[in-house]
């Protein structure tokens, strides 16, 4: 059996200065990669070892900007392209609102890149059992001694030459570390066994989860929750003979507070007369009803210039136009009860008195928008 290949030759020094002075001498030998193991960080070591600047910083910058761009694209697509909803009166693509998430994703990408890149890419973890950890020198290194190691780089390392070089540089104690026999850990059988174990664990866990969620609730007494007599959507019911859970009201039933509408066509409705007197009280009521139900589309002035619906390209009627000023009260009433074009019926949410009061108020708006000089004369005492 041949000797295992050399991993490194460690030389121990008594002080940080001795270590720093030895490095240039050993580097000239060009036997392998130089590495140091010290109890604490030492100034000037990076320069002495001529370590290349870590590429991590560049990776972090790139990934940070990628994170910001991903966040911008994600939010922009979601809020302006895929599902544009106006929130708080802001435009769908409001970059101001995206900035916090961009910042967060930028930080997330940057920290993950820094952490994972450092551990796995640059430090090549997982690394089971670094040879230095099982050396004799490790006790000194963690306490008060400073180690310089010449490590095999690619090919093999000549331990005699390295030992001679280190002792010429002043190392007090020299140790040759051989590469640990470690090949058998990650052989095919181990990988197959590990993968098989993972698959079996997944199947078992999934089966248990399925049983806990799907099968366990079907056992009595839990199942009694589902088997009780109650109405189920889209299922026949045994409450009534016709299989329905509820019955329609008797024909001709009138709900409390709601009178059935007399007219059956818009033309018939035009003949209706506003039954409410034009008192201040009724006008106030009309203003409230109009503001709550109508103004969102027809606008606070009734001119069809609304606050919100313009963004959806709706064209609500201009209630103060000539056409509507001449229109009879019944036309408004019909539209409120039956709806008109995109306008839904307000029969359910505006009681009879609110409907007529809001029509009074529309007349007030029409008068206010078309005021004449003579109106001023009338108000004079």
């Amino acid at each position, binding site marked *: 059996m041949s000797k295992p290949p050399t991993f490194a030759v460690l030389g121990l020094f008594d002080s940080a200065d001795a270590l720093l002075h030895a490095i240039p001498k050993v580097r000239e030998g060009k036997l392998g990669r130089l590495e140091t193991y010290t109890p604490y960080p030492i100034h000037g070591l990076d320069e002495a070892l001529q370590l290349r*600047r870590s590429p991590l*910083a560049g990776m972090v*910058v790139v990934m940070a900007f990628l994170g910001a761009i991903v966040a911008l694209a994600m939010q922009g697509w979601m809020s302006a392209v895929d599902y544009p909803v106006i929130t*708080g009166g802001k435009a769908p693509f409001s970059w101001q609102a995206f900035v916090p998430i961009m910042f967060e994703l930028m930080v997330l990408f940057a920290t993950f890149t820094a952490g994972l890149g450092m551990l796995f890419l640059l430090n090549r973890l997982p690394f089971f059992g670094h040879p230095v950890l099982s050396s004799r020198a490790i006790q000194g290194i963690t306490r008060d001694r400073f180690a310089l190691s010449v490590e095999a780089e690619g090919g093999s390392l000549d331990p005699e030459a390295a030992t001679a070089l280190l002792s010429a540089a002043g190392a007090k104690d020299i140790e040759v570390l051989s590469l640990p026999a470690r090949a058998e850990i990650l052989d095919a059988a181990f990988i197959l066994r590990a993968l098989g174990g993972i698959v079996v664990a997944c199947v078992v866990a999934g089966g248990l989860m399925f049983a806990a969620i799907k099968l366990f609730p079907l056992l009595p007494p839990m199942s009694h929750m589902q088997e009780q007599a109650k109405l189920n959507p889209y299922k026949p019911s045994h409450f009534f003979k016709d299989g329905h859970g509820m019955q329609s009201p008797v024909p001709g039933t009138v709900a409390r507070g709601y009178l059935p509408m007399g007219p059956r066509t818009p033309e018939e409705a035009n003949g209706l007369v506003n039954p409410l007197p034009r008192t201040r009280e009724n006008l106030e009521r009309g203003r409230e009803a109009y503001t709550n139900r109508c103004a969102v589309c027809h606008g606070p002035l009734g001119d069809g210039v609304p606050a919100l619906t313009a963004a959806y390209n709706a064209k609500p009627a201009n209630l103060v136009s000539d056409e509507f000023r001449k229109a009879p009260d019944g036309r408004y009433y019909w539209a409120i009860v039956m709806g008109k074009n995109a306008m839904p019926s307000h029969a359910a949410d505006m009681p009879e008195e609110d409907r007529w009061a809001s029509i009074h108020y529309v007349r007030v708006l029409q008068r206010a928008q078309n005021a004449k000089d003579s109106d001023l004369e009338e108000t004079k005492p």
Partner: protein
Amino acid sequence: MSLSAKRLWGVTLLGLLGILAVYFVAGPARFWLNWVLWFVFLLTLALGSMFMVALEHLVSSRWSVPIRRIPERLSTLLLPLVPVGMIALGAVPVLYPGARPEALANKLLAGKAFWLGLPFFSLRVALCFLAWLLALSVLVKGSLRQDESRDPQFNVRARRFAPLAMAFFGLGITAVAFDWISGLEPEWYSDIFGIYLFAGAFLSALSGTLLMVLHLQGRGRLPEVRRDHLYNLGGFIFAFTVFWAYIGFAQYMLMWYADLPEEVVWYQKRTQGGWLAVVILMGLLHFVIPFFALLTRDAKQAGRRLHWVAWSMLAAHMLDLYWLIFPVLMPNPVLSWPELSFALFFLGGAFLWVRRVRELGADLPVGDAFLKQGLEFRL
């Protein structure tokens, strides 16, 4: 700097003639806008320097001991600023709506009339200056005296006094921000505004310190200050450009979202017309350019790069204050002979003062008990 004292005096006197002409030709409002702008600019530089000194004592920082004399010298700008501030009180009845008789008719201002009125305004300014001068005499005068006495007891006294100096600084700079800047539009308010001004103040003090260190090193002085110290100053500038942008954007985003009329008009005024270009320029100069210029490790130690970043940072802070103050009366940015006269007068005066205090005490705080530790500082 090839600015001889004679030339600086000439520039300052020329500026003085200019600003007198501004008062009578361009009108008092423009005069006072410029006066407040330059007063706040130099005040933030002086207070930021005082903050640096107090911060070092407060956290017992050692790396900054060798450069501490620079912010100490810069913080003496407070002395000439006392008369400048007293004169600036003349702006209060002209520019500040809360101190004008019409305020009593405004429901929002009537309740704050006592606070915003000239008597209490002046009292606050006087109290602030008293507190700052006390801090100046304890921290800076004590430090200068230590050069001779070599009394390590000063470090203990300064460490004990530093928390109080911090309180003076924190409350004081908030008062400056609220009184002198947001007081121009008293209906508008923002809790974070004092911190926003603090970010600018600290940045301008760091930049001033850096420039003075590089200037002295150019003349062969301060050879003990190494790249490691410069790196920390550069790192601070780098960090606080981000801090400034963070605070500024946080303030903007909340107001943009809430869209409350009394808050949002402030931003509307400052993003309309030519002011939008100022905002963009400020974002570039105050954040984007210094951020990328100082991003790498090497850049934070390179004297040449730090030199121009520090100058542009001072310019950006000036632009920031200009953007905060001038839109009150100006619908578009203005830069004409009145502004240039003020620049001549105040820059000339400031350089004259800095020239004088350049020789204040030794370049290093030679009596400081921790100077050796500071000189040995390595990254």
